[in-house]
């Protein structure tokens, strides 16, 4: 039973990190990218391939993982977001990020195959039940990431610019903020954080090409439950969803996980559309 709770929280950490990645991109561009989960997938597969197949040392694998995430994040801004945001058609970014996400997933499966492969051990630790690194690594990293992002938003100049853009992009531009460059930067940051979450959760999920879509959906549910734009909400939403998923799998069987998760999403959105920690936006005109 304890194992069920711990693995649920670990999954919740992974979902929470994905929700944080959504938030970073949403703050500067108001785009919820379909490819958010793919950062973790790309990072995880890259690391597993470099470390296990090519026998790179682990630190080099981690660096390569982060670099691949940064490159993918930057590319997704350049290819799928920049022109769409400039054209300001609110439906098109769903399509362009969906297209890019599909392409990346297919390319990864064509090159590295469709079977999940194991992920290397990060720390030299014997398997230790509920205290194993595959459980606490995503949990701790999720909390660290949330705290770090909050500090980043509040203390650093760049973080404050992100906040300014999320409140009013035009006003920020009028005040001399290089909004295009900031948007690129936020996508690079999102790519790095996403790849890092894939690295942290790799031992839990394995390096699997289908991880991206599943994680994108779960991370989005965590985000919607917690409320868009809130770091605490992302963590809490992730933890709720992770626990629910894990308990469902324990009591009813793994095949009902998604049904329960989407049930939670729809129930919460009907009762409280802005999420648990979100702020309401009533103005439509």
């Amino acid at each position, binding site marked *: 039973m304890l194992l069920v709770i711990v693995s649920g929280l670990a999954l919740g950490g992974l979902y929470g990190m994905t929700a944080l990645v959504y938030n970073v991109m949403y703050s500067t561009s108001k785009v919820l990218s379909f490819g958010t989960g793919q950062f973790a997938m790309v990072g995880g597969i890259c690391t597993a391939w470099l470390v296990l197949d090519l026998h790179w040392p682990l630190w080099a694998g981690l660096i390569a993982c982060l670099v691949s995430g940064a490159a993918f994040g930057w590319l997704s801004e350049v290819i799928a977001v920049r022109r769409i945001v400039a054209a300001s058609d609110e439906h098109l970014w769903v399509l362009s990020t969906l297209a890019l996400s599909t392409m990346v997933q297919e390319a990864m499966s064509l090159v590295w195959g469709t079977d999940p492969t194991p992920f290397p051990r990060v720390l030299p630790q014997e398997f230790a039940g509920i205290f194993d690194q595959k459980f606490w690594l995503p949990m701790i990293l999720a909390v660290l990431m949330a705290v770090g992002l909050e500090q980043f938003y509040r203390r650093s100049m760049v973080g404050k610019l992100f906040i300014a853009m999320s409140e009013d992009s035009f006003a920020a531009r009028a005040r001399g903020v290089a909004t295009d460059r900031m948007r690129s930067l936020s996508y690079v940051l999102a790519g790095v954080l996403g790849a890092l979450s894939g690295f942290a959760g790799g031992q839990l999920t394995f390096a699997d090409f289908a991880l991206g879509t599943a994680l994108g959906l779960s991370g989005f549910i965590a985000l919607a439950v917690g409320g868009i734009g809130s770091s605490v909400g992302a963590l809490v939403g992730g933890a709720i969803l992770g626990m629910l998923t894990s308990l469902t799998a324990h009591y009813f069987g793994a095949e009902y996980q998604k049904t329960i998760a989407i049930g939670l999403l*729809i129930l919460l959105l009907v009762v409280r559309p802005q999420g648990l920690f979100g702020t309401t936006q009533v103005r439509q005109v």
Partner: protein
Amino acid sequence: MTHTRIKPVVVGLFALLAVALPWMTGNVYYLHVATLIGVYWVLIATLNLLVGFTGQLSVGHVGLLAIGAYAFCLLAGGQGWNPFLALLAGGAICAVIGLLLGLPSLRLPGFYFAMATLAFGLIVSELALAEQWLTNGSVGMPAPSFPAPFDTPGGFYWLVLGIAGLVTWMTANLARLMWGRAMVALRDSTVAASSVAVPIYRTKLIVFVFSGFTAGIAGGLYATSQTYITPDAFIVNLGIYFFVAIIIGGRGVIIGPFIGAAVLAAIPELVGPLAKYGTFFYGLILLIVVLVLPGGFGELIATLAAKLRREPQSATSIEPDLPSLRNAVRGQKA
């Protein structure tokens, strides 16, 4: 107005060509591909009403297709119902499920709705694998074929053609009349549409239920055309294919998505080596169309046709009426 005379001729020629296809090609495989395009079209035609006209991005229609296919196989194969009755029952079941799915999810904004339908598609394929007592799990089940005149490849092709024609006619009627205006209006501006008394939620819901119904019909036809169904046949990628067909064909045009569906279905089937890269290319084509040609090929063709007819572009024809303007200004001054 030459195009009003041209249009029926083109449609008639196309219909004649479509009906005559089984005699023209002796190749059973080509006929199978043509049948498959027709089956997809039954689903895509009304999904176009939802995605192209109403602007609701449903990625998970493959779930409704799967439910329709399983309902058809269970009722016509297991329970021994008349296949036509089972086909209608499958459509009705999908309409009800579409209603249940649409009631909460159509209240959500764009990306939320896309995610909810994506999740629905994933749930259905998960449950089709898990509920072995109903679906045989990954083993799958055989699909019954239709009675006598429709049991040959040619006969089944004509049946699909008939249903596809009927669905196209219904779709075109809906799109052309008041309903279509309401859909386009609420797609372009929900606020403006509701201010002129378009019932936003009800319109979306009715379109969604209608598209659910034909998705169920398409599911039954799909099962028969494949003769055997497994959960693997209904992966989410198929839903993305439907979606891409509509977007590259052009949102808000009836015939555009048909071209998209035909091209996308025919290329991997006819060019063997491409099948492996199929989904990758769907993604690539979607990306290119969204970036370069947001209106899809339907709009491109419409623009070219207008150029060919030398009709003046309506956007450039706004000229100020200078004399009356001058009079008005002078009148005000005097």
